[in-house]
């Protein structure tokens, strides 16, 4: 990266870190939510944008992470153990979801992942003994880490932001490593990849599992943020928003989800005056964007230059 980009990145990070100190509770809540979605979006960007798999099931992993955090923290497990547990559980489930991807592609995979999302949703709703069913789980405590209680909205925001930066750095590291190149090779041409020794089975599974683990971490932050979990936020609609987040920003671009999650999470708030019509316009804009700018918002400069 050029020095200019570093400066822009650091300035952006400083802005995101400090802006909520000037906001009221709701503003802090929204910004925190944006960070949470962004973490899940980064994971999905790995699966969809870098490794070229299509997934309509990211919200299910967010849900698994959130319920893991809710159930464990209610049982008194410290958050220091909850974050890795949520990530690990989602990693394993993501690995399982990767198996259909080895057999089917494209639209079949879209439906398979979508179906997985529905299945998780049904389990969350029907298995009341574990998940509280439709009543959900209320009064989830905010985390305490290293003796520090993140109870106030702003404190919790800073924790979330720290996790966001950490996961972002890890993702950048992963993408710069040979793994990142293997994921891209898998996306661009899986058959060629096999013939040059790239184990596409392994990398497909990893793309799903790591992407899922990111959603798991996001979920483990979602639960204490809202302090309440129930099945609805982890339905297909959220998976769809997340996919839109990745695509709208620019799939396979590191900062794509950051921009995309602004569009999906924050823009509706700013466009509140348009009420229902906002989402209608949003939907049609997606169609228009796929027609004229399939590379997402971040591909705009290249399009203009060309």
């Amino acid at each position, binding site marked *: 990266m050029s020095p200019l980009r570093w400066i822009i990145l650091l300035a952006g990070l400083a802005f995101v870190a400090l802006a909520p100190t000037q906001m009221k509770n709701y503003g802090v809540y929204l910004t925190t939510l944006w960070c949470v979605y962004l973490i899940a979006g980064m994971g999905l960007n790995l699966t969809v944008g870098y490794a070229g798999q*299509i997934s309509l099931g990211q919200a299910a992993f967010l849900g698994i992470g959130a319920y893991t955090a809710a159930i464990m923290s209610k049982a008194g497990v410290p958050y220091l153990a909850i974050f890795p547990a949520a990530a690990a559980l989602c990693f394993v489930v993501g690995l399982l979801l990767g198996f*259909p991807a080895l*057999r*089917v592609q*494209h*639209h*079949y995979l*879209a*439906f*398979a992942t*979508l*179906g997985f999302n*529905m*299945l998780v949703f*049904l389990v969350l*709703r*029907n298995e009341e003994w574990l998940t509280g069913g439709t009543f959900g789980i209320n009064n989830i405590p905010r985390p305490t880490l290293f003796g520090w209680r993140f109870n106030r909205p702003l404190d919790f925001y800073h924790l979330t932001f720290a996790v966001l930066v950490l996961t972002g750095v890890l993702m950048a590291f992963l993408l710069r490593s040979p793994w990142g190149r293997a994921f891209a090779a898998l996306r661009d041409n899986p*058959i060629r990849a096999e013939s040059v020794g790239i184990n596409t089975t392994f990398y497909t599974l990893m793309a799903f599992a790591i992407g899922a683990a990111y959603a798991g971490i996001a979920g483990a932050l979602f639960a204490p943020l809202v302090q309440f979990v129930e099945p609805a936020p982890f339905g297909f609609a959220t998976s*769809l928003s997340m*996919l*839109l987040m990745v*695509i709208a920003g620019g799939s396979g671009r590191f900062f794509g989800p950051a921009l995309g999650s602004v569009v999906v999470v924050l823009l509706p708030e700013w466009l509140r005056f348009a*009420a*229902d*019509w*906002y*989402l*209608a*316009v*949003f*939907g*049609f*804009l*997606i*169609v228009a*964007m*796929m*027609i004229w700018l*399939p590379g997402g918002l971040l591909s705009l400069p290249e399009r203009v230059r060309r």
Partner: protein
Amino acid sequence: MTDFLQLVIAGTATGGCYALAALGFTLLWQASGTINFALGEMVMLPAFMMLFFMSVLGLPLPLAFLATLALSLLVMGYGFKRVVVDPLIRHDVITLVIATLGLSIGVRQAVKGVASAQVFTFPSVFSDTLLTIGGVRVSAGDIGTVVVACTIVLALQAFLNRTVTGRAMQAVAQNRDAATVLGIKVERMVLYAFLINAALAAVSALLITPVYLAKFDMGDTLGLKAFYAAIIGGFNNSRGALLGGVLVGVLENLVGTYISPGYKEGVALVLFMVVIVFRPQGLLGTVEERKV
């Protein structure tokens, strides 16, 4: 046993509606490789068009249906092809998937904006009499739905196999280049597929809305079930859509009754998962070569 038969009949009626929507889906896929995620909205939209013609213009149901059919052909047939699919079909499948997902959000929210998020009643084309056949109670509406759905599927099958146009459409579905060489007007055949899809959606709206009630998000579950039905039956086979639709409709009722109502919605999904693992081409489908 009576319960069982009653469930099967009711399930077949619901499945028939899934099948009609699924049929449109497979036709589009065969003709142009279009994956349409806005399928459910294409059933919801005609329902609201009919409501508009009936309540605002005061037309009786049959006239309202004809007007809706014409409008559907124009907007969801021709318009959908020209405005959305034609510019996108060059790109990969994912682009089209995302675009039609966007379209479904747009259409749904626009209807919500115009007609509010309220639920509306919808008159049935069939009388609400109840027939008792050998102790099994069956509603005239269910029988009517099954008859209409089966007639349409069979008629379409006959059209595709027996008429020149139908065969030309099949030729396009099997091999575009060869069809072109044979002098078939490929683009026109593809357009026919879109028009038939729109008409099928309008008919399923007519059949299913009296039971489901008209609501802006009614296409949500319907669209999904239709996809699953299409894949279960076989993506590239018209009769497969009927089989898949009925299978899903009937099994949902049976699972909902005898196993667990909570997991009724998961039936289509589990069937689908089983099918893609053991028979990815669907129950009646044929294998498509994986392209390098």
